[in-house]
């Protein structure tokens, strides 16, 4: 269970550009839930993810994982139990290293990065096996530099890497936004498969309303730092894309977009 308690976040405090994004913001995610978060630009979706991951500090409030308060925990320490895939496919992998080296790095997450060999030869067969499941032919390219792969292939590798070790949360930050529609479809299908297999608690921010409706078991819409729609279970199953689109347009018109 992830709980955000009365979170307050200001940008540029003390200047004319001061912006209060979150004021006493409450949010919680149950274990094993797959939450899709939608909302217009500036609604606070990505800030929400950054706050959970510790990439940005909060001005007030607390963040709890179960009973544990992680509000002041450093970002890299939080990431030991968080898998994260970014919008930019190059953020989740190291371009100058090979697929094999990238996967070896990810496989050691949470462990000690000492003077042992970087690539554990005994694990290569396993890497090939999980790459094969992607169906992109990457299992034959493990010695290729990731920088030479297409955006979709890189994102697929990034997704695998982020879920290789046991994690408490999978954070997806518009991870299909930079891909062409067909590749996005493949990555989205793959995401769903991994989430179901690993039963990992997932928060996915997306601009694609259809994905938000089709995938996941809870849908949250944010606007100006507030949750304005939160549907889960049977309610979530009943909503369709047009309905969401309608609400989305209404709030967008209100703020003049």
């Amino acid at each position, binding site marked *: 269970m992830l709980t955000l308690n009365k979170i307050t976040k200001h940008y540029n405090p003390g200047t004319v550009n001061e912006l209060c994004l979150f004021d006493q913001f409450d949010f919680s995610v149950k274990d094993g839930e797959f939450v899709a978060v939608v909302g217009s630009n500036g609604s606070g979706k990505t800030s929400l993810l950054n706050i959970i991951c510790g990439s940005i500090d909060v001005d007030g409030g607390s963040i709890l994982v179960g009973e544990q308060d992680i509000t002041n925990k450093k970002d*890299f*320490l939080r990431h030991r139990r968080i898998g994260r895939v*970014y919008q930019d496919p*190059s953020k*989740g992998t*190291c371009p100058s290293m090979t697929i094999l080296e990238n996967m070896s*790095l990810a496989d050691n997450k949470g462990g000690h990065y000492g003077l042992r*060999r970087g690539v554990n030869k005994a694990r290569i067969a396993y890497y090939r096996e999980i790459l094969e499941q992607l169906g992109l032919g990457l299992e034959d390219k493990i010695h290729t530099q990731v920088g030479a792969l297409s955006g979709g292939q890189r994102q697929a590798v990034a997704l695998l890497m*982020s879920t290789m070790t046991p994690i408490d949360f999978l954070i997806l930050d518009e991870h299909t936004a930079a891909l062409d529609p067909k590749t996005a479809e493949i990555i989205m299908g793959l995401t769903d498969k991994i989430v179901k297999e690993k039963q990992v608690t997932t928060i996915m921010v997306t601009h694609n309303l259809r994905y938000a409706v089709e995938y996941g078991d809870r849908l949250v819409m944010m606007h100006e730092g507030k949750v304005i729609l939160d549907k889960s279970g049977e309610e979530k199953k009943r909503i369709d894309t047009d309905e969401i689109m309608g609400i989305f347009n209404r709030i967008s018109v209100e703020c003049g977009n």
Partner: protein
Amino acid sequence: MALLLSVLEQGFIYAIMALGMYITYKILDFPDMTVDGSFPMGAAIACVLITKGIHPALTLPVCFLAGAFVGMLTGLIHVKCKVRDLLSGIIMMTALYTVNLRIAGRANLPIYNMETIFDNSFVNGIFTGASADYKTVIVIILIAVVTKYLLDWYMSTKSGFLLRAVGDNDTIVTSLGVDKGLVKIVGLSIANGLVTMSGCVFAQQQRFFDISTGTGTAVIGLASVIIGTSLFKRLTFLRVTTSVVIGSVIYKGCVALAVRMGLSSSDLKLITAALFLAILVLGMERKKKVKTNADAE
């Protein structure tokens, strides 16, 4: 022949330094000016230890550790005090000028007629007769090659993987649950350890320490790295570290040629700067860098 020997000696000494700069410049993308201070620091420490009668072979590990410490300080200034990379190096370089004077006790310290890593009972026992002329170059090449292989080995370890990752994309290091600042500090430490060791070998070959030996070290190192990496870019069978070593020898060869063509040794720094500019422009390094930053993919 004497010219060739001198180019090889100088080239391989500076190759050790260039390997360090390869870590900072190519891997970490950190233009490290600390080297202008850590290189002469190696020279100062070597000369002082040798005058005190310490075995010359011991100067190498001592210098590496001292350099690693200095690199760590640059890293701490950059990471913990959030000072820009270039400025962190300049601060350390300036501070080290005084430190080097304090270590040596004066602006120059000769070690003529004393034992060095090239001139001691062990080395002299191996190289007798005609081969004695080549003992210096052989010892230097040996040190440079061993250093290169040690660096190659390090780069293939888990820790080395992190170092490569942090220069490539530091977001992923955070994602892996590792403090990226710490990885940068480790990289700067190893780099400056190598640079200081290079200064240590340099002083023993020249048989003196001079406070001004450090000026231009960063430029020489960068030039070697860029020559090596851009000339041999297409030769994929060649490891980058090997290219950097060869780059350093080529660079020293170019400088030796320029001096041969009638320029005096007081013109050296100007030649160094001009050559560096030429390499930068011809190597298209700048353009490529701007481009990769621009499309960020």
